[in-house]
């Protein structure tokens, strides 16, 4: 019995491999997990019918500083200046991203949409799911980036020597390509199918056969798209985590128009001070 060939992008020649189903099914279960936790959180507020004011207050509370994971983590710890800088930006980034999701999630909940568990999909519920999944993905993205970029040549320098904005763009493009080829190759076992940019900080990544969505199908097309949406939050976090650990602050939004395709829009936050 011949051993199956190693994956497209192993970390090292002697990397241990496990079956892809383990990762696929673990990611699928992340969404029900986030829903259970969000439901419990909602119940703990002791407000069965929250008023708009209460919702606003709660939203601010739920988007407070993210709790740092304890020692129970499989990622390595680095204390370089770059990592410290990246870490210090994580709180505002999450806040910004959270704010961006409010308009999108408000509309569905206004139409009394039902969640997968048959209960109303309130704004608190939807936001809580997003924050949980995105935060998980962010941490995984950080760890992945550290691990995969370890043996890699340096990315194009970005303004470190007083260079102009052009170099900043070159750096961003270099990092985005790393994301599209190396990160995608390890995590989803294929490269991004299409990358577009306006050369002013916005990148659109298209994956025509996005792995987390390949096991989904439903009779009702619109409902399938709606149910698929939370499965994109974790990948959004991965993208933002990878970029963050490489010095780029960004917001990421995702959508699926036709299963199993997915589109990710990355908007980088341009540096305020330009030498």
């Amino acid at each position, binding site marked *: 019995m011949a051993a199956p060939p190693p*994956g497209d992008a192993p*970390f090292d020649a002697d990397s*241990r491999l496990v079956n892809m189903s383990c990762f696929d099914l*673990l990611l699928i279960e*992340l969404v029900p997990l986030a829903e259970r936790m969000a439901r419990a959180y909602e119940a703990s507020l002791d407000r069965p019918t929250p008023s708009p004011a209460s919702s606003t207050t709660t939203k601010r509370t739920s988007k407070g500083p993210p709790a740092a994971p304890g*020692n*129970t983590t499989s990622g390595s710890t680095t204390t370089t200046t770059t990592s410290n800088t990246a870490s210090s930006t994580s709180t505002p980034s999450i806040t910004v991203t959270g704010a961006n999701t409010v308009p999108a999630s408000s509309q569905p909940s206004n139409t009394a949409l039902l969640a997968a568990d048959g209960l109303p999909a309130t704004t608190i519920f939807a936001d809580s799911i997003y924050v949980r999944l995105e935060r*998980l993905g962010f*941490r995984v993205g950080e760890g992945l980036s550290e691990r995969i970029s370890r043996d890699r040549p340096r990315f194009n320098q970005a303004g470190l020597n007083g260079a102009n904005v052009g170099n900043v763009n070159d750096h961003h493009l270099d990092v985005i390509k790393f994301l599209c080829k190396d990160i995608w190759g390890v995590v989803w076992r294929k490269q991004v199918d299409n990358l577009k940019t306006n050369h002013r900080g916005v990148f659109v990544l298209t994956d025509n056969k996005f792995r987390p969505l390949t096991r989904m199908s439903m009779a009702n097309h619109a409902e399938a798209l709606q149910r698929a949406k939370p499965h994109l939050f974790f990948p959004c976090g991965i993208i933002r985590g990878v970029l963050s650990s490489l010095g780029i602050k960004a917001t990421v939004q995702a959508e699926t128009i036709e299963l199993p395709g997915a589109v990710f829009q990355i908007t980088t936050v341009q540096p305020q001070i330009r030498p």
Partner: protein
Amino acid sequence: MVSGPYMFLRTRVDKVNAELVTLTYGTIVAQLCTDYDYDYTQVNQQLDKMGYNIGMRLIEDFLAKSNTGRCGNFRDTAEMISKVGFKIFLNITPTVTNWTADNKQFSLLFDENPLADFVELPDDGRAQDELWFSNILCGVLRGALEMVQMSIEARFVSDMLRGNDVTEMRVTLIRYIEDEMPPDDE
């Protein structure tokens, strides 16, 4: 014996880097600990529930990949879990041992555990005694076996992460689940 189509199927088995799974799982456990304010009993329960749901889906993958039939007895089930199931999915082969006389209980000894590589438990004086880091595996086993009509209980009794010499999961057969007719099929 080895035909072309067979070889084609074998070489098409998808693999992923184990560190990716380890990192993802570790992040999940860390966030659960934070969310539950380090109430490790609740963390253990949530990991078990996650695993149960995953196990119910995983068993279909297992039956499709392994091409096995029904096991005749619980001893055969244990061998299948150890030598086929864990081998297919995690690329490890835990040891089956410590059977009871009635053949309803056994232990799985893990000398390696991909989920627990590079892991340190929180240093709060309680995690060492309360958190079962890989508890998702107990849930996976329970969920998977329930789908093939075996009600079992699985729990860790020792863990190298806690400083024990070995990582041991105790598996107990509770009962076989009888076939039931759908209510309107009488």
